[in-house]
Structures are given as structure tokens and as C-alpha cells.
């Protein structure tokens, strides 16, 4: 019965828009995973918490702006300040994480930074839990809730904002990596750390830049989630973290463009899954895709098989 709904063009378009919205958010977070993996060959499992911290910072900043009345008069500026504040804090957190939890373990066996990442993740969740006394917080209502109607189809301003915003951020990142000198240095370090160092690249600085970029994108995703879904809690990074990781693997971990597609594919699959499965199994989609990809094409849709390093 549900399948016949698919033939209804309104429903089809609505679900695609839903999928692109949530997919954009997954893609933004997934960028952080893929950038760090490309350079350090480790999965930054605490990245979900960087997303969560970005969201909470945005909440504190925006709440302060609303309380002081500033937000009522300058809506766009307030939202901008919220994003910038979240990016600043998340970047600092990312840099701190790298310095404290990962750098000391760079020469250690691969398992050590992984465990360190999981430990950092749990630690950060609990820090936030203590800060907000384990209560969920609610973002103030500043964004307009209206939508545009074009004939039978409708899309809300929010969805446009998220879809366009995530595309702009990711395209910006890709251009940065392709066109700038630092971007070139990042690609060099990803390809061969030692050779890049021999060429005069400051490897440590590039690693820090990588974390900063990934964390900024995660922070943007965090504020978008906060504005759109309004409810945030200290565990909110866990599930999106896993799903974003899935998206990164789907697109080919280490491949930045693939990451974007991975996010959108995951988002749209989730949205359409409600026609084939009872909607409570929505999360099953993400994990099934992860398992299937790891079995049949572990380097992802757009990834290349990298030769084993000596």
C-alpha cells in the first residue's frame, strides 16, 4: 500500500527534499572524518562530539543574543555570529583533541589512537552532561518557519537554507583543497607524509589545519541541526557521528567529493526507506549500507584502492 504512494509526485519530491536536507548535514559531518582519515589514517571517533559542542556553543551564543534583544533587531547578523562562535569553539576543541589525544600516539600501533578517540568521545559527552546538568536544551525560535509553495510542491525556507548552506560549505572546502597552497600541502601530506616533509611542508601545521577545517564544518552542521530540530542534548553527537562515518565510508573514505555524495545517498535512502520498511527501522538503513559497503566495496563508491605502504 505504501509503495503506491511513491507514484504520487508530491510525496516523491517531498522525500527527496527531506533526504537532501538530512543528507547535507551528514555530509558536512562526514567531511571531518574523511579529511582526518586522509591525513592520519585514523578514524576520529570524537568527531561527533565536536559536532555536539558546536551545536551547544551556538545555543549559548544565540540564547545570549536573544536575551539581550539583539537578535530581534538583527536576525541575519545574529545567526551569522552564532555560526562563527560555534566554528571558533569547535576548531579550538579539534586542535586540543589532536594535541592531547592523537599527537602523542602518532608512532603507536593503529589501535592506540582509536581507543584514545573513543575515550575522548566519552569524556566530552560527560563534560557537556555536567555543564548542562543532563537536561536537553531548546534553541530559540529565530528562523522563519514559512515555506515557498510552487503549485503542489512546497519547500520550507529552512530546508533551502540547509541544502544550499551545506553545498556552499562543501564546495568551498573542495575549492580550498584544490586551489590554494595550503590545500596543496594537505594533499601532499595525505599522499606521503615524509616526502611532503622533505619538500618543506610543516606537517604538524597542516594536520592542525585539517582538524580546524573538519571541525568548522561539523560546527556548521551542529548549528543547523540546532536551529532546525531545536532540541539538543549531550548525546546528540553519537548517532549522527556513526551515520556520518557511514556516509564517509560509502563515498570512499579519504575522498572529499565522494564524501558529499555519500552523505546525500544516505540521507535520501533513509527518507525513502519509510516506504519499504516500517518507519521505526529508519536507522537500520544506515547500518545495513555500512555493512554492505564494507563487504562488497570497502574502498567506497568513489574511492580508489590504495597500494599497501611499506
Amino acid at each position, binding site marked *: 500500500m505504501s509503495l503506491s504512494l511513491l507514484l*504520487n509526485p*508530491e510525496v516523491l519530491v517531498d522525500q527527496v527534499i527531506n533526504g537532501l536536507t538530512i543528507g547535507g548535514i551528514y555530509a558536512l559531518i562526514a567531511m571531518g572524518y574523511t579529511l582526518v582519515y586522509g591525513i592520519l589514517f585514523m578514524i576520529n571517533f570524537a568527531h561527533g562530539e565536536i559536532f555536539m559542542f558546536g551545536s551547544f556553543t551556538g545555543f549559548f551564543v544565540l540564547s545570549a543574543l536573544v536575551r539581550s534583544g539583539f537578535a530581534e533587531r538583527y536576525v541575519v547578523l545574529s545567526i551569522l555570529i552564532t555560526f562563527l562562535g560555534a566554528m571558533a569553539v569547535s576548531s579550538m576543541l579539534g586542535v586540543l583533541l589532536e594535541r592531547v589525544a592523537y599527537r602523542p600516539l602518532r608512532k603507536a600501533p593503529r589501535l592506540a589512537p582509536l581507543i584514545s578517540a573513543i575515550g575522548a568521545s566519552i569524556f566530552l559527552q560527560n563534560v557537556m552532561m555536567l555543564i548542562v546538568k543532563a537536561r536537553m536544551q531548546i534553541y530559540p525560535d529565530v528562523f522563519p518557519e514559512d515555506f515557498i509553495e510552487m503549485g503542489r510542491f512546497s519547500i520550507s525556507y*529552512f530546508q533551502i537554507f540547509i541544502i544550499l548552506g551545506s553545498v556552499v560549505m562543501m564546495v568551498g572546502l573542495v575549492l580550498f583543497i584544490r586551489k590554494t597552497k595550503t590545500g596543496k600541502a594537505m594533499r601532499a601530506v595525505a599522499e606521503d607524509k615524509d616526502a611532503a616533509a622533505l619538500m618543506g611542508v610543516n606537517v604538524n601545521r597542516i594536520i592542525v589545519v585539517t582538524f580546524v577545517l573538519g571541525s568548522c564544518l561539523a560546527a556548521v552542521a551542529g548549528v543547523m541541526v540546532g536551529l532546525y*530540530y531545536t*532540541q539538543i542534548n549531550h*548525546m546528540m553527537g553519537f548517532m549522527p557521528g556513526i551515520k556520518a562515518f557511514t556516509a564517509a565510508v560509502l563515498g570512499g573514505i579519504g575522498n572529499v567529493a565522494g564524501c558529499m555524495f555519500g552523505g546525500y545517498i544516505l540521507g535520501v535512502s533513509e527518507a525513502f526507506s519509510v516506504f519499504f520498511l516500517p*518507519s*521505526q527501522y529508519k536507522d537500520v538503513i544506515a547500518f545495513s549500507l555500512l555493512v554492505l559497503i564494507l563487504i562488497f566495496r570497502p574502498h567506497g563508491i568513489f574511492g580508489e584502492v590504495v597500494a599497501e605502504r611499506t
Partner: protein
Amino acid sequence: MVRFRWFHWLVVACICVGAMTVSAADEWGEIVIPDGKPIKIGLGAMLSGGYATLGIDIKNAVEMAVGEKGQIMGRPLELQAEDDQCEGAPSVAIAEKFCNDPLVAGVIGYMCSGGSIPASDIHNKYKLVMISPSSTSLELTNRGIPVFFRTCWNDKIQGEAGAVYALKRNWTQVAVLHDKSAYGQGLADEFKRHILGSGGKILAYEGLTRGDKDFTPVLTKIKPLSPQLVYFGGMAAEGALLVRQMRRAGIRAKFMSDDGCYTEKDFIQGAGKASLGAYVTYAKTPEAERFSSWVKRFEAKYGPRQTFSPQSYDATNILMAAIERTARRGEDGSLRIGKKALRDAVASTDYDGVTGRITFDEFGDRTGSVVAVNVVTCEKGACFFKEVED
């Protein structure tokens, strides 16, 4: 081997009679509070996480009641509050802890039906009384567990109240959503049964996951079915998001939910403008002046009341009164409370609480509960729940 004479049998008989007399102190055993130790009241509620607003509200009310009573027969009363996370596994762990703590005389708990159901098995094993202020699932009172009581209504009454109102307003095309929990899904099933039984149509019956934030896929799925009413069995954290996303998706149906959404902070404030006009079922507000004066006292100390603080306050007072009736002083200065005697004292309660007169039926349910339908109304800049006129 000594040959048994008649006086040997007399000695054996005396020992048997003596043993029976001693153990007949209470057929379920006794709670023994040694001299100098406090009487502990246990509490299980969600103190951190998505529904902490309700849990902390419950804790405040229990704390208020324990603080006011202060002591029983010279022994100080102590509250031990534990975080049950509104889940089965933590509730069971806390139940084991309380049942094996010799100083705990009874438990107010647990907050959620999903926790109370498995925990009640533990309480039944150790025969420790538990009074829940908020677990409304039918399953709790139809399994023959003698130590369970509740000062709230049950979901048969609540589901029916919601359905009766919906049918009265001629909302016969209904989409039903639930959060897959013992509480939410149980209630959704009750509601669905009543609607179908009266000739209504259930256009969709879908589950969503607690903790999830994005319900747009399932809402997009039910939008083309044009329901008149969307009924949600679940808690405010999800309910607020649902109603917000419903309005965003352009679904014009009415929204009705249950006591899980009867919280001004998490539902009305959480959903903002989208909550206007939403229907929520909850106990009918008692007319007695006692209720409103209690609310003022409570709010002066703890801030705005949420959902189950009145029921928690009453449950605590019932438990403490029963302890006071049953406790006896032992020869060694200890306080002895027979477990079955305590249970029977609770069962025979006839108490005028802030939520009205409270008595229990043979299953532990509160008799005479009336559930009313409330609608979110905004007047003079403040939004609140208002009971609909019959």
C-alpha cells in the same frame, strides 16, 4: 541411637510451635531498621536525559513529602533517589539495589512503564512495596503482582478518554504514531482499538524511535492520506518535535497525545507556536482547594510544576503513612516493619491526597480515575493546558 520416648516428641512439638510463632512475625519477612539508622524511601525516576524534566519534577515532589514528614517513630526519613533512565535495564538494577538494602522500606517508582514492568518482577521476588506515580501501562496491574500500586490512572482509561473525545468531534480518519515503548505503543494500541471499535478508520500506524529528531520521512508518508487527527503515544521530547515538523510539512490535522506530553516546559515551550491547539490527555484537575494551594507551595519552592509531581507527593505520603501504621518497636531497639503487613496497609489506604481521594483496587490500580482532554491555549501572552468543556 536414642529411642524416641513420648517426652522427646513433646520437645519436638514445642520447637515446631515456637518456630511457627517466630516466623509468623510476617509471612513475607520483615524490614529491620537497627537503632540509630534512618528509614529509607527509594525513588527511581529519569534524572538525566530527554525526559529529565518529568523525573526531576517527581523527585522534587517526593523530596517535599519526605521533608515535611521528617521522621517516623523517632527515626529520620531519608530519600535515596536513583536515575532509572526511563529504561528497563537501569530500573532492574536499581530495583535489585533497593530490594537488597535493609534500610529501604518502600520505593516510589519507577517513572516509566518500560522500567516498572521488569522492576516489578524484582520487587515481587523480594516483596518490597512499590508505588508508581507515573507508570500507566496496563501490564503492570494484570500480572497479579501484589506489591505494585499506582497513584496515576492507567492507559485503558487514558486511551479510551482520548478516543471518546476524538469520536465526539467526528475525527474518524486517524493516523496513529507511537514511540515503540511499553507505554507509548500500549497506549496507541488502546486508542486504536477504541477508534476501530466505533467504526473509525486508522489510516496509518507507524513507530518512531525515542531520541530521533527527524520525523519528516514518516510525516511525508502520512501527509497524502489526509488524516483529520494525528494521535501520538509517547513523550514530550518527541511529541514537541512531531507537532513542530507536522506544521512545517503543512499537515493541517489536529494533534492529540497523552500525559507524556503534559509538560509546559518540554511540550508547549519546546514546540513553540506549533503546540497551539494540540490536545493532551491528563487526570482531571481536582476541584479541591487543597490541590491549588499545594501547587502554589510546590512552585514557590521548586518552580513550575510539570506532569507527575502531585501524584508523586500523594504516593510518598501514602507509603509513609502505611509505614507508620505497620512499624513496631523490637526489643533490641530496632524498628520492625512486616512486609506483608506494609503491603496490606497500602492496599487498604483511604487517603485524601492533593489529587483527590485515593483508594486502590485489588490489582493495585487507583480506583475512580478520571482522565480529561486538555488543549493548549494561549491567553494574555501565556500558553498553558486548559481542560476542554464536555
